[in-house]
């Protein structure tokens, strides 16, 4: 039996805890608990099991990379020869490569020399080395983009979201000078200023160069750069899986057929 004093205690405790738990009401709690928001899946035309890259987008994306991104970002793992049949013809590429100068050597005198580029050369780097890259960008090195579509969670979705995701920092967030707010970037503060603006590039095929269009094209291009085997991989994958699937079915049937004698065997023990 509770005394009236104990009962009063209990009532007081109950109402106090109800009041103190009010801060847990759903309007005050936020759902997000990470240092960035995830990029959602956009409706790409190349993500299906049997889908190949949109070749036109890859070509436009190369143009965006070259005119906008290549100022700061290298694409070291891609050579001119790898663009053959993907973005440009061999003739176009030989001409494009010859427009850049490449350091080669040493020659017979032991000196390094410059020569026009060839198909076998990698795409030109904006900075000679990491230190130069950092010095030109306030200490933050613009990363090489050859594998970026594979190196980040979200891949091609992440790249697109990042490029189009710049917005104002939320209230209370302290932003160091020289950094820009991007909610898709881990930590929210990225050293790269928003790189794309409407009309920045002129597409020769007449496509409107809006920010979304350029971001889409360059994301597809970077996805190709990270996975140049993509189209071939999916084609071979489909062929092999079909053939192996049929083989499985035939072999499986044959095995079950042969084993049926044993599996339906009846053993009886007679004393």
């Amino acid at each position: 039996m509770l005394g009236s004093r104990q009962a009063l205690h209990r009532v007081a405790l109950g109402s106090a805890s109800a009041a103190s738990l009010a801060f847990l009401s759903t309007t005050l709690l936020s759902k997000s608990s990470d240092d960035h928001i995830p990029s959602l899946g956009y409706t790409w035309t190349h993500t299906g099991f049997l889908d190949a890259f949109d070749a036109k987008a890859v070509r436009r994306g190369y143009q965006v990379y070259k005119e906008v991104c290549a100022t700061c970002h290298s694409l070291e793992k891609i050579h001119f020869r790898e663009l053959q049949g993907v973005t440009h013809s061999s003739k176009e590429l030989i001409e494009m490569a010859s427009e850049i100068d490449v350091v080669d050597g040493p020659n017979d005198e032991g000196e390094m020399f410059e020569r026009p580029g060839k198909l076998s050369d990698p795409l030109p780097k904006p900075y000679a080395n990491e230190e130069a890259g950092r010095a030109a960008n306030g200490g933050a090195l613009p990363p090489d983009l050859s594998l970026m579509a594979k190196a980040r969670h979200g891949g091609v979705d992440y790249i697109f979201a990042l490029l189009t995701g710049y917005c104002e920092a939320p209230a209370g967030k302290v932003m160091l000078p020289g950094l820009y707010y991007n909610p898709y970037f881990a930590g929210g503060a990225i050293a790269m200023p928003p790189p794309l603006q409407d009309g920045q590039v002129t597409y020769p095929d007449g496509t409107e160069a809006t920010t979304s269009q350029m971001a889409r094209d360059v994301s597809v291009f970077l996805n190709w750069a990270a996975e140049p085997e993509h189209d071939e991989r999916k084609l071979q994958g489909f062929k092999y899986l079909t053939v192996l699937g049929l083989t499985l079915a035939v072999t499986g049937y044959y095995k079950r057929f042969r084993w049926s004698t044993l599996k339906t065997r009846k053993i009886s023990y007679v004393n």
Partner: protein
Amino acid sequence: MEDDDDDDDDDEPVDVLPKLREECMSGCKKEIDNYKACEERIAEKGHGDCESWYFDQLACVDKCVVPKLFEYTK
């Protein structure tokens, strides 16, 4: 760069993304209210940040924008 009231609009292409985002904000009233409430709270307190509530808002807008955006690009 935001002159979209030209007579001939093949001067500057205008991206549809900001407009889409604004339209999608109308479906995220709860998240927007929560964020504004947070802003007021930290303005009173003088410290704290509202990033989580901002993320809720952005995630809600994203859920609406993402399935539709590529219809407006090639």
